[in-house]
């Protein structure tokens, strides 16, 4: 089920009436026995990979307010008509029309300036006449925005890939196809690391290197590097087996000026960190933890566009987590801290249990920490 498409020229997308046809990706309900299709590598996505993300491009284009108003109206009606025409009952994680309209606002802000408020396009009141006439600066041709929005609604391509960034914690991270889009739940890992680092500093236990295994976009590496400021730890080492991840993580490390603090090494899990064995003050990971058979049935944004390499945890979803548990006992120094994100309650309990019993006396203080939805999302503990 590989689909390759040549993207139509932008001009022809201008003011096309909204299409009621939904892409095959979003409507197909794949039977459990079908072999999972590989991540679709469309021509367009491969080509887009090398372009500057939309939100970082210069404001070299512009559009009149009237044209933007027309775009906004078209985009809103596309959302509503797609929702109405859905040929199957909505999946619980399908984006709601209200959320898509909010994404539309963010798309317009990323495509122009942060202060741009689409609401202004429609308000008829006292704003000054001059502002009402002047064109709005844009980072792309309006035609491209039509194409982008169509991809969002009809092909369920994640907004984050379309604008090239994900807002995560208090940062704006570059993301693109080939790296997992950082999840809101994972934000809590940075807070846990901060707490541990503060306690360690207060008790006079100095720094030491930390590691983010399977760094993807580098979100956790950059996040923990920022809380492990000078005096609260040594470097942060980020590993990932994927070249896409290495490339994007490097960009994010640079964007936050952390080249001296964060070192990125390509390789699988602990493998590039042999020189640090037994020395790590802490390690964090959000490894792929979804059971393989669940992948095709995921929300289309995820199954159709995000890299399965970052999601597939093997039969029970536990393959990588177990590998991490096994490696942590030798990688961490005595007193070293670990936190792993898991698929939720059952997996967390299994891992917590495994860690406590597998290597008797290896770890203590093992806890399951819930996320804000009340799901037991993280397993944390210390190397004895």
């Amino acid at each position: 089920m590989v689909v390759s498409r040549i993207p139509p020229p932008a001009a022809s997308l201008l003011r096309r009436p909204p299409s009621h046809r939904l892409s095959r990706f979003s409507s197909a309900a794949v039977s459990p026995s079908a072999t999972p299709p590989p991540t679709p590598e469309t021509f367009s996505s491969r080509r887009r990979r090398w372009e500057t993300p939309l939100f970082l491009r210069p404001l070299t284009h512009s559009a009149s307010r009237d044209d933007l108003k027309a775009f906004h109206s078209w985009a809103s009606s596309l959302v509503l008509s797609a929702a109405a025409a859905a040929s199957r009952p909505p999946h619980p994680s399908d984006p709601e029309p209200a959320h898509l309209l909010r994404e539309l606002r963010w798309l317009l802000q990323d495509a122009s300036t942060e202060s741009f408020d689409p609401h202004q396009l429609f308000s008829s009141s006292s704003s000054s006449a001059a502002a009402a006439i002047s064109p709005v600066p844009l980072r792309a041709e309006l035609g491209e925005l039509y194409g982008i929005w169509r991809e969002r609604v009809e092909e369920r391509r994640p907004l984050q890939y379309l604008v090239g960034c994900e807002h995560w914690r208090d940062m704006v991270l570059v993301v693109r196809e080939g790296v997992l889009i950082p999840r809101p739940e994972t934000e809590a890992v940075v807070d846990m690391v901060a707490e541990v680092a503060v306690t360690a500093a207060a008790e006079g236990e100095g720094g030491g290197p930390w590691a983010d295994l399977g760094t993807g976009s580098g979100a956790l590496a950059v996040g923990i590097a920022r809380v492990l400021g000078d005096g609260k730890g040594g470097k942060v080492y980020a590993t990932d087996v994927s070249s896409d991840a290495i490339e994007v993580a490097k960009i994010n490390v640079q964007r936050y000026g952390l080249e001296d603090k964060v070192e990125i090494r390509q390789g699988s899990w602990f493998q590039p960190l042999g020189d640090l064995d037994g020395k790590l003050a802490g390690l964090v990971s959000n490894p792929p933890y979804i059971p393989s058979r669940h992948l095709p049935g995921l929300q289309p944004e995820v199954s159709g566009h995000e890299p399965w390499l970052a999601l597939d945890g093997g039969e029970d979803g536990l393959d990588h987590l177990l590998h991490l548990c096994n490696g942590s006992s030798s990688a961490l120094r005595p007193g070293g801290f670990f936190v792993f994100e898991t698929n939720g309650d059952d997996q967390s309990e299994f891992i917590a249990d495994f860690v406590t019993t597998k290597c008797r006396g290896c770890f203590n203080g093992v806890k399951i920490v819930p996320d804000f939805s009340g799901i037991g999302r993280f397993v944390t503990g210390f190397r004895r």
Partner: protein
Amino acid sequence: MRFLGLGVVWRRRLPRVLELSESSPAVLLSGSVAFRALPPSSAWTPSLVWDLRSYSTETQPQLTTGIIKIMEQRMVAIEQRSAYLHERVNQPEATTAEYSTANKELQQLEDTMELIRDLRAKQKEIDGLKSLLVECPEDKDMQHMATEEMSAAREEEKRLQLLLLKSLLPKDDADEKDCILEVRAGTGGEEASLFAMDIFKMYEKFSQKKGWQFDVVEIMVSDLKGYKEASAAISGPGAYGLLKFESGVHRVQRVPVTEKSGRIHTSAVSVAILPQASAVDVQVRNEDLKIDTYRSGGSGGQHANTTNSAVRITHLPSGLTVSIQDERSQHMNKSKALKVLYARLYELERSRQHASRSKLRAQQIGSGDRSERIRTYNFPQGRVTDHRVGITVHSIAEVLEGESLEALINALLLQEEMDAIASFTSGSSL
């Protein structure tokens, strides 16, 4: 609070109503302004007399014997308190708790004590010069020098007395803080929502002028794209102290855009300004908070790609709930929700304290009665009137652009200062 440049004379009689015309040389506010002193509620309330010739930024309120006498009483009380606290702090048997509370109060009194010490020293110097003048009436040079030094000392004494008065006046600790602005359309349907939007934008422009950060928290839009409700976090030193007078009901009189017959309608918008607070200010612990996020019904985590990171925080002890949804990351939604929650909790605590204040203080400006009608914006006549100080500004457009708002605020600050001095002289320190 600062002393604004007007001559204030305290009279114990019925006040006069004073109207300044546009051509008067000493107008407080730029543009054309008419000023009326409000009839006060008690005989002690001062009337405002314009010292037209000497209006300048150096003009200070005059210290009457009444004020000075009361200040002297306060000075003695503070000196005694400070001595007592010093003694307690130096006691070897003092427990750490006693020590720290005593020390804390000492630190709070320190600035005032320093002024008192300086003032006492200056008054001693003046006494010395007085006796010098009396003792050697024939020595012309000595007389001359002593007289000069005396006048310099008197100036300095007055300066110190004014500083001391300022430090003795009741202060609102919250004046320095950032604030949360909440605008809500009241009676008037769509028209009220449209005006609510105008007012919200007015504060945005004013904030920009002052160099403050204006961070929209939430906007609820009406059918005609007005704002039913809108709130923002305004950050900048002293933001609350300047904007606090905006709390209340703003009334607008104009022909609505929806009105076909050209009839004037009156609608209302209510504004609330809350000081921002920190977790420490409101003594909130992590255990007191319950944080919920939007659950897609699925398993979350890697399963879902959602841009909806709405957060709802419940403060368990009080039951207060805040939900924020429009930030692009859950972390930012949560941090904004905490900001609003702390501000609301702080406000709860402050209104509790307000309720226990003296009646006089409660009547004064800025006492925070949200339903008080404070201002009217009359479009057909092109003027904005603040009912608390009786000031009218004749340019609605300028006000809505955030321009003349500063002038109104200055007048309100002055009134607040007068009220504070009134409670000072009436002996009520709350």
